């Protein structure tokens, strides 16, 4: 694919402009909504950048500096405890998602000034939000970049760690924050190696370089550790105090010195690449729309050039139109396939999730039965967290794969249908247009590549992942905290003061602690089950509706295109010879224009070499 074409965004804009002018000219105003959507997606594709790091490594300061706005609270004592999703908005806006008393999801907007209280601890408050969405007018986000600030992962075994790892495949880029005070430890290196495998762009921000004169040595050591582990992320040193100075003194040198512009440009690079990919998709979609516009013109042109075939074409088109109407009916086979398919998928996903969760349940029972020491109880908690993270990740994965498969099943079905109607035939004799329009192959391709990629966007990529991260990010730490809180009595064996009487009490306390830990874990598992199930139901519903709307919408467009062609053919019968010649000329000019647009779209879509 020809990426990195600097004029591509301009060419795409020109193509879309030309296309909307043609759609208006042809009276197909129904296409304008889709065009606007295509344009928006191309200009601002969602690129998710997740910011990860251990506790107190300067993640929030980093997010603020990148955005140029203080969004996340920075405090020595207080840590971010909530997943914060920051995206672009013309006006600052805060929405928080939390669980209502019945466990259902409540969305409320909040004041920007209250943000620090929402995202900082303590998070044990049951009414605390599990996710906060912030919209800010930051230039970095203007192209669709979305920053996800995560709570500190706190060691690889920690709860947030498990949630964050499971989220990585959904992110376009990862910024790992670690301060220059110490070299990366083994668990951090392992996390980064994992991350590099799961996420296409990994950036390593070495924070607080202002504080540590030895930061260069640390950076070299880190690079060495990572290279030895087979991963080579870009290491970017950054300093928040220098950035603050640069802002208050409006000093461009200090701005560079802070390291943030370098980090921001790496992120913009990621978002530019995403934009290129979305441009390619947009061009492919444009070709589909061009195909629709040209259908009527070519049908009319064919009829004018060879009036004897007009009736046959009219019959064909009317048959196609009737068929398309039938397809739009709620009882059409693709509709039934979709409905049945989603019913199956729902069953499959629910079942997979339940059995995966049963694994976590068993881990609790088996693990705690044998656990005597606190290390063992902690190991159980860690194992349960991993089970849960894997269960949730696996479930969303099943959902994605299933929805994608349904998408292509429906596409295939429609393609077969199209063949059955003889749809490719009705275009076969018409001109030399590269716009193939209504053909089986096109539908399949579009559902898979063009529109199809976006059909699944509701569950795939960012959204599903963020939902998952937020749910786990809220629940898993709660699990850890409640279990850890239940274990202190296992401590302080204290041989120093003798063991008389202590052993009995300790055993009893250990028993109680196990019991408490078990109850705490089971309660958390119930919560996970309940919340994830409701998220899944929602995700399934959304993706079903999305798929139905997308396919239905396209069929509707085709139906309009066909009806327009029918109307135009009907008109040709009434025209006189002189009018015909003029009309043929007009149509030729327009078809040539559409062909030119299509040629440029084909280049932008990477379907032909320049």
């Amino acid at each position: 694919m020809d990426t990195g074409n600097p004029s591509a965004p301009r060419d795409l804009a020109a193509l879309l402009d030309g296309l909307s002018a043609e759609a208006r000219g042809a009276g197909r105003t129904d296409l304008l909504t889709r065009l606007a959507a295509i344009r928006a997606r191309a200009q601002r594709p969602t690129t998710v950048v997740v910011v990860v790091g251990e506790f107190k490594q300067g993640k929030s300061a980093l997010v603020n500096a990148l955005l140029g706005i203080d969004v996340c609270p920075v405090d020595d004592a207080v840590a971010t405890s909530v997943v914060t999703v920051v995206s672009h908005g013309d006006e600052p806006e805060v929405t928080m998602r939390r669980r209502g008393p019945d466990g259902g999801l409540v969305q409320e907007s909040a004041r920007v000034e209250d943000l620090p209280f929402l995202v900082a601890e303590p998070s044990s408050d049951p009414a605390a939000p599990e996710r906060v969405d912030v919209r800010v007018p930051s230039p970095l986000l203007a192209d669709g970049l979305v920053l996800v600030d995560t709570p500190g992962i706190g060691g690889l075994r920690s709860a947030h760690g498990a949630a964050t790892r499971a989220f990585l495949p959904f992110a376009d880029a990862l910024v790992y924050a670690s301060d220059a005070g110490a070299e990366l430890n083994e668990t951090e290196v392992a996390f980064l190696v994992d991350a590099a495998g799961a996420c296409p762009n990994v950036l390593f921000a070495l924070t607080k370089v202002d504080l540590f004169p030895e930061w260069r040595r640390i950076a070299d050591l880190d690079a060495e550790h990572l290279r030895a582990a087979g991963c080579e992320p870009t290491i970017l040193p950054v300093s928040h105090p220098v950035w603050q100075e640069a802002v208050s003194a409006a000093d461009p040198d200090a701005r560079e010195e802070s390291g943030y512009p370098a980090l921001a440009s790496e992120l913009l690079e990621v978002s530019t690449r995403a934009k290129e990919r979305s441009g390619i998709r947009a061009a492919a979609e444009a070709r589909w729309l061009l195909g629709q516009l040209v259908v009527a013109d070519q049908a009319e042109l064919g009829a004018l050039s060879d009036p004897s075939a007009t009736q046959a074409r009219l019959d064909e088109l009317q048959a196609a139109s009737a068929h398309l109407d039938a397809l739009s009916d709620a009882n059409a086979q693709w509709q039934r396939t979709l409905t049945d398919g989603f019913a199956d998928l729902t069953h499959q996903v629910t079942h997979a999730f339940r059995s995966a969760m049963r694994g976590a349940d068993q881990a609790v029972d088996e693990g705690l039965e044998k656990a005597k020491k606190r290390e063992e109880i902690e190991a159980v908690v860690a194992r349960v967290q991993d089970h849960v993270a894997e269960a949730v990740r696996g479930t969303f994965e099943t959902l994605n794969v299933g929805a994608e498969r349904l998408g292509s099943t429906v596409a295939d079905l429609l393609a077969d249908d199209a063949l059955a109607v003889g749809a490719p035939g009705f275009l076969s004799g018409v001109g030399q247009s590269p716009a193939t329009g209504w053909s089986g192959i096109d539908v399949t391709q579009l559902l898979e590549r063009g529109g199809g990629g976006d059909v699944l966007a509701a569950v795939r990529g960012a959204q599903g992942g963020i939902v998952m991260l937020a749910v786990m990010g809220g629940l898993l730490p709660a699990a850890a905290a409640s279990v850890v809180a239940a274990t202190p009595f296992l401590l302080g064996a204290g041989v120093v003061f003798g063991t008389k009487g202590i052993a009995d009490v300790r055993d009893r306390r250990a028993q109680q602690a196990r019991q408490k830990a078990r109850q705490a874990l089971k309660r958390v598992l119930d919560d996970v089950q309940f919340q994830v199930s409701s998220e899944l139901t929602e995700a399934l519903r959304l993706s079903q509706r999305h798929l139905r709307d997308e396919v239905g919408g396209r069929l509707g467009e085709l139906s309009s295109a066909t009806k327009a062609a029918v109307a135009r053919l009907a008109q040709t019968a009434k025209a006189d010879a002189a009018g015909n010649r003029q009309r043929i000329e007009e149509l030729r000019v327009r078809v040539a224009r559409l062909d030119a647009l299509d040629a440029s779209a084909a280049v932008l879509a990477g379907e032909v070499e320049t």
Partner: protein
Amino acid sequence: MNGGASEAALRAACARAAELSRGTELDRRVAAVVDRFDGPLRVAVAGRLKAGKSTLLNALVGERVAPTDAGECTRLVTWYEEGLRYQVQALLTSGDQRELRFQRGEDAIEIDLEGVDADAVERLVVQWPSSRLATLSLIDTPGLASNDRAVSDRTRGALGVGRGGAPDADAVVYLMRHVHHTDADFLEAFVDPSVGTPVNTVGVLSRADEIGSGRIDAMESASRIAGHLAADPRVAALCSTVVAVAGLVAEAGQTLTESEFQALRAAAALASQERGRVMLTADRFIAADIDGTDRDRRRLLLRRLGLFGVRFSADRIAAGTAPTTAELAAALVEVSGLGALQRVLRERIEPRARALKARSAMLELGDVVSELASSDPSGAAEVGRLLEEASAASHEFAELRASHLVMAGYTDLAGAEAADLLRLLSAPTPAERLGIDASRGLDAVVEEALTAVERWRQRGADPLNDPLTVEACEVGARSAEALYAGANPT
């Protein structure tokens, strides 16, 4: 109180054990028990790798004795004891001793292992003529959570975990990082519980200057965090208090040289705004153009004091509050939190030194007795009886054990009730033990002591109590009785 009777019984037990073990393998252990009891309190400095243990140890000794670079030596357990001359010995696992050559280097002493395999070394013993080591011997331990298992095991061994007898340390200064309370590693951040008890463990929130990103108010911020940590019940079960300490700043304060002071004064001479700009980052400070100091000197200053230490010193010098090396050194020690840590050691640990050492001696002797039992059951029983007597005669032990039970959460006491009992068991003066104003005089002590006797007897008599709660309350009642007797000589 009745420490005398207890000590006499302990010495009698030692003497009897020495007679019985003469000529056997146990001979040396018994002698060591006596030495230990008569020697200084042994305080282990423990914590995770890179928590700044060696730096803190230097600060406590007041000299740069501990190797701070990541060489082999920090992987070994090192004891620092008062000695008549400077001397380093390696105690090998085989039981042999070997004197090692060493050099006082720029930053620390450099010890030459002379080809001795580090794995064959049980510990290094550094003898140093230092007045600060007269009352406390210090034990430097390698990181507990070291990636190298041998290193962790050595540390556990040094702290007496997983073997009979008493731990090597009588008390523990435990360095903790700033960890999140939901962190799965949270509890791992603490020393193995078989050694530490809240009674003899002081928590230190280390690298406190970095927690506040080196800002000039960094230490206040770190102290607040230390306060939160100490209030966490899980931490409270392990150490009685948490002090925020900036080890580097403390060490520099203890060992500040005149030429370092001059260099800092040169930096302080910059105009305030320029100083702020230059000292914003370590890089800028090194690269800056400052009359009277060169880059290498400034690089060294940063290594010695850290960015916070440099900023603080320059501020104080510029403000005129630290016009001399000595005054700046004192200010650094105070701001670093070392002063507070030393106060805690002086007020909470040292007054209990005899009891803590006696307890260690008893544990060790108890282990000797159990070994003796196989060859000489009646002799062993005799020493055992003497030990029981020593233990029973000391109300101080009982208080320590009761404090431990309450703090570590073995009793049903909690909240204000637990706090009252702990105060009664361990505060330094009668008035403080009873929680009354010292100016109220003896009559008030008598009156309050009687109330306390009654309160803890009743609390201990609750039929729902478990045995350990009963024990703690009864000890409390006896402590109150002693206070009554002390204030009411009739």
